[in-house]
């Protein structure tokens, strides 16, 4: 009997201490596309996340952060499923999610059903996520796809003298947003976009798409990512394609530039725009690149962090810094924490980032050109740095709202 009660006592004390430890932890759920077309993007995003933890540490005052990772496949339902699992089963208090455009819209809408939790966007870049009916508990520290294209249209028109271009892109919200940004600026400068082709995410056989590319244009813009981009380039090489290329933000990115095989060489000289540039000389950026390289052995990472690694790094950084400001205080439906998130100004590796009233990032954009480093590795070289890019791309908000939401056909090719 006494044995039994001692046992019970020991057991209950174990539970109690367990509860005590649990109180000192702040649980954060993270999602990344670790399956499907965007696997490589998700993996590098997680590397960026890990780099941030290496640099900043996991301690928040006397509490410690605990991260629980769930995998998605870039479809909105997979993202909602993962987030729901993290909330309901793992009881996370904060979410760092999601990675891809359509996922972002779905998670933002889902965030409204959990007003007591806080969502920090990890890397998704569809415009609609924060522009249309934003959720008060959803914060985005990366720019959207259109902001990431700022500077490209003008550069193509004025420096490269491209007059007519055609676009090929994956058929979903992020690429719509990218093409939106490109078309607004390129057509605003006087250029023409003659043809916009859309292919389903996860297309493997691009041969017919390549055949349908118009040949009376000066350049072809590619808004593809992950496995799709590699497949396209490989088949483009086999078909003997020779056109000038322009690239979207996840097309001209280490996820593609360091893929195996030599099809990627078609990209040398390609102009693009993104929230980062591999060879930027800024000391903050160089320090981040070094931290990323030191965190993983060379065969387990890219030569330089991809846009996804940078975005995950920035959002993890915002999470940790804001939590430290309030000393891990998540009481009163996380009100203090949210206030800190909204006000925080990040000194991120890819330039200063602050949030607007929709909790959407205002940041720095880069126009780049792909160069060969002489040893067969490709990097994006800075051509132009554009600070303070906001979500309305410098347009008056009233004018901007008349353009319409990014879609297959919006915006029209004209000057707004």
């Amino acid at each position: 009997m006494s044995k039994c009660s001692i046992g019970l006592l020991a057991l209950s004390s174990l539970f109690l201490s367990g509860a005590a430890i649990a109180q000192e932890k702040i649980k954060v759920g993270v999602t990344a596309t670790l399956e499907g077309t965007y696997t490589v993007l998700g993996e590098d995003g997680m590397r960026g996340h890990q780099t941030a933890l290496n640099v900043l540490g996991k301690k928040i005052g006397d509490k410690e952060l605990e991260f629980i990772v769930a995998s998605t496949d870039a479809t909105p339902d997979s993202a909602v499923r993962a987030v729901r699992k993290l909330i309901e089963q793992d009881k996370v208090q904060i979410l760092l999610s999601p990675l891809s455009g359509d996922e972002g819209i779905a998670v933002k809408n889902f965030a409204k059903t959990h007003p007591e939790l806080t969502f920090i966007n990890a890397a998704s870049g569809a415009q609609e996520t924060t522009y249309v009916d934003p959720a008060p508990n959803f914060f985005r520290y990366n720019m959207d796809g259109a902001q990431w294209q700022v500077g490209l249209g003008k550069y193509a028109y004025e420096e490269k003298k491209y007059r007519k271009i055609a676009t090929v892109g994956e058929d979903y919200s992020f690429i719509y947003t990218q093409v939106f940004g490109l078309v607004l600026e390129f057509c605003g400068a006087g250029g023409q976009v003659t043809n916009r082709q859309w292919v389903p995410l996860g297309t493997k056989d691009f041969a017919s798409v390549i055949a349908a590319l118009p040949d009376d244009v000066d350049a072809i813009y590619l808004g593809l990512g992950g496995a799709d981009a590699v497949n396209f380039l490989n088949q483009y090489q086999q078909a003997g394609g020779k056109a000038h290329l322009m690239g979207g933000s996840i097309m001209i990115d280490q996820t593609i530039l360091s893929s195996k095989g030599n099809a990627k060489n078609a990209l040398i000289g390609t102009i693009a725009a993104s929230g980062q540039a591999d060879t930027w000389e800024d000391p903050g950026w160089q320090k981040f690149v070094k931290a990323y390289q030191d965190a993983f052995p060379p065969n387990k990472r890219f030569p330089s962090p991809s846009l996804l690694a940078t975005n995950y790094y920035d959002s993890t950084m915002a999470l940790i810094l804001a939590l430290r400001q309030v000393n891990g205080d998540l009481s009163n439906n996380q009100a203090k924490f949210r206030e800190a998130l909204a006000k925080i100004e990040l000194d991120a590796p890819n330039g200063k980032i602050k949030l607007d009233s929709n909790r959407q990032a205002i940041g720095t954009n880069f126009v780049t050109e792909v160069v060969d480093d002489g040893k067969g590795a490709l990097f994006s070289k800075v051509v132009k740095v554009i600070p303070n890019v906001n979500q309305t791309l410098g347009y008056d908000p009233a004018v901007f709202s008349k353009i319409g939401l990014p879609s297959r056909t919006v915006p029209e090719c004209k000057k707004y």
Partner: protein
Amino acid sequence: MSRFVERHPAWALVTIIAVAVALWLIFAVWPPGLEEAIGRKRVFLNAVFNGITLGGLYFLVASGFTLIFGLMRNVNLAHGSLYLFGGYVGYAISSSTGSWILGFVVAFILTALVGVLLQVIVFRRMEGQDLRQTMVTIGLSIVFADLMLWACGGDFYQIQTPNWLIGPIELPLVTAIKSSGEPVYLRYPMVRLVIFIASVIIGVAMWLALNRTRIGMIIRAGVDDRDILAATGVRIQLVFVAVFAFGAGLAGIAGVVGGTFQSLSPGEDIRFLLASLVVVIVGGMGSIPGAALGALIIGLAEQLGSVYIPTYAIVVTFLIMVLVLAIRPQGLLARR
């Protein structure tokens, strides 16, 4: 053929007209009105060729699947895993030795060996238990997928096309006439043509082997009635192992082909399993000519769909499957 015309004169007429229209579309120079209505001939021709070559790849995967099903009534849902496994092996061999051809040979042998193991260890233990086999192979395909993810990572691999196959060749098909009166010929990626020709050769060889050789006769007899065949003294288990090995090896070869003109990554196994399921459902379970026809139809539907109705391209494939299931549930070329 003549019996078909006698029995279904209306269908025969429709078929002849369709073939004539298709031939005209391929060989004639398109009048300007037609180009305006449905786009340039180059695009159409490319889509048709791509559909046919993609069909060649689907045929390679699906023929092994249908052969195994036809003889053993095994629904091997780990077939897609064999495809991906063959692809990874082909990548490892061709990137380390630099020989594309050697990649095919080794991929064939290794996936055939995996096939033998599957047959001996798994299928022989549960002969005739369809549901159990299906469940076990689904389980195995998940295990294989995770093992391959563990070994190769989530990265996508591309098997390097040998230099002599890179780039396009000109085909003697006129796509347009320049204003100077000079004809423009169709340029088409060489590697796809070579792969297509190879798959036709494999298909014809398989058909000949099945219909003209002793072992083919045994296999066909086995498809019709296993028990009687076994009673005549044929060592049926040996035949099963051989057929399973060959079918698996074909999937391995297909993996190398797929890795060359598309790419290899986790998830491809499921995609090709699904594709071969659709192909054999359309063509008829267990029939090699059926697999060829099904592969051609699905390949063409995917490619023409992606050009002319890009938004609904994915739906077209399944629409065809639904139609076939509704009208001819046994498949287009099934015997029973």
